[in-house]
């Protein structure tokens, strides 16, 4: 199905930041330092380079099928039945991803900030707001980012700048102490976050003109690598690789150490406000993509009626997914890399190969 709105290439790339950064800055640095120690920032760069491959695949597919979403060209490439099955796999994958994000969000708030509140309360409230945003369409979500993005960037700058007194350059040395293999292992951990660039294959169809999708992908990925690399580096510089492994929420802890001359303190509250706004965009975007995908696969004219029931189902699923925060961390380390490589890397690559072999394109329309 088609959606009426269009977004600019700049909005597409900023949406991509929001599709990856909010949960990544919170959960990734601690997990990364488990594997790559003080070279974690290098693992982020390697993972970004690796994410360049699916980004290229998305771009080439978008050139072959301009103004078609991922779910639509699945069917154009693979035929009616197989196409629907693969599109449904993508819908389910985005749906599960959203359940994980909802759970991560609410577990963070219950663990770090409000331990007495049940996590379902946070999950229900953020999904209710996200449903409202997603029902209004992609353009509205994109315009929300116009407002939140400067806040997010300012927040990165403030935290990293004000944490510099606590930093010690010795913490990132020695460089490549155990060779390149731990760094490669670290980039495998980074992949579940980085691989989400695949989401641009769905809403990228609404970017006008389609050719500028390449620009969105490059600036999107570079921005993510920049901010994620800086936060990871900041965490290592402030805490050191050893202590960083024991932090569950590294980005939040980084905000907590900021203390400037007795008057600028406890700016983690700022972190919370902006981070919640960022996760709201991420959940709204995922919900929109899932509803759009399900509407495409089942051949509906409208995706809007699906958003609210999907949100409710997502909250229930998020409750069943994990028992606690350590199960999420365990999953991010031992299951997610394999799963996300399969659906975010291999599946799109196969789609492109089949389209290329069968010589399919829809550029004339």
């Amino acid at each position, binding site marked *: 199905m088609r959606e009426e709105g269009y977004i600019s290439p700049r909005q597409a790339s900023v949406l991509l930041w929001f599709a990856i950064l909010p949960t990544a800055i919170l959960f990734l640095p601690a997990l990364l330092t488990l594997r790559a120690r003080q070279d974690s920032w290098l693992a982020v760069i390697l993972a970004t380079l690796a994410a360049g491959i699916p980004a290229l695949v998305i771009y080439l597919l978008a050139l072959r099928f301009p103004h078609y979403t991922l779910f639509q060209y699945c069917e154009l490439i693979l035929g009616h039945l197989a196409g629907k099955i693969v599109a449904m796999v993508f819908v389910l994958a985005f749906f599960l991803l959203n359940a994980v994000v909802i759970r991560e969000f609410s577990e963070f708030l219950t663990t770090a900030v409000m331990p007495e509140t049940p996590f379902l309360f946070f999950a229900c409230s953020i999904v209710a707001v996200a449903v409202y945003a997603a029902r209004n369409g992609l353009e509205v979500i994109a315009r929300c980012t116009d407002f939140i993005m400067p806040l997010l960037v300012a927040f990165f700058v403030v935290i990293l700048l004000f944490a510099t007194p606590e930093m010690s350059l010795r913490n990132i040395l020695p460089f490549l102490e155990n060779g390149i*293999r731990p760094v*490669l292992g670290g980039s495998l951990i980074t992949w579940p976050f980085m691989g989400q660039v695949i989401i641009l294959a769905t809403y990228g169809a609404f970017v006008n003109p389609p050719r500028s999708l390449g620009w969105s992908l490059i600036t999107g990925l570079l921005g993510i690598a920049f901010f994620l690399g800086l936060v990871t580096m900041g965490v290592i510089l402030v805490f050191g690789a050893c202590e960083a492994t024991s932090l569950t929420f590294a980005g939040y802890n980084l905000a907590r150490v900021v203390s400037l001359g007795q008057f600028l303190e406890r700016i983690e509250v700022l972190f919370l406000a902006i981070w919640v706004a960022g996760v709201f965009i991420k959940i709204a975007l995922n919900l929109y993509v899932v509803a759009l995908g399900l509407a495409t696969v*089942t*051949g509906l004219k409208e995706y809007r*009626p699906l958003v609210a029931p999907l949100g*409710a189902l997502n*909250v229930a699923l998020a409750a069943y997914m994990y028992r606690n925060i350590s199960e999420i961390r365990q999953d991010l380390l031992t*299951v997610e890399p394999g*799963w996300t490589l*399969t659906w975010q890397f291999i599946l799109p690559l196969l789609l492109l190969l089949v389209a290329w072999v069968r010589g399919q394109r829809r550029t004339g329309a």
Partner: protein
Amino acid sequence: MIALIILAFLVIAYLDAPALWQKKEWRELAVMGIVWSLGLALSLGLAFHLPVPSPAKMLARFFGPVTLWLTRLIG
């Protein structure tokens, strides 16, 4: 808790279902109904503490070994 869940799902149904019914969009109504009842069933299962298997566990059964293999291969 159970009353809250049912109330929430009634509100969700009320948002879109009447309009779809009037416009006779049966396909939309059917897909929405399926997702809606799945959500209601799972939420009630949550309230009654039914042992519903976690989808993360199912993924882990298959993709856990894949990740382990990948980690041994490159990490």
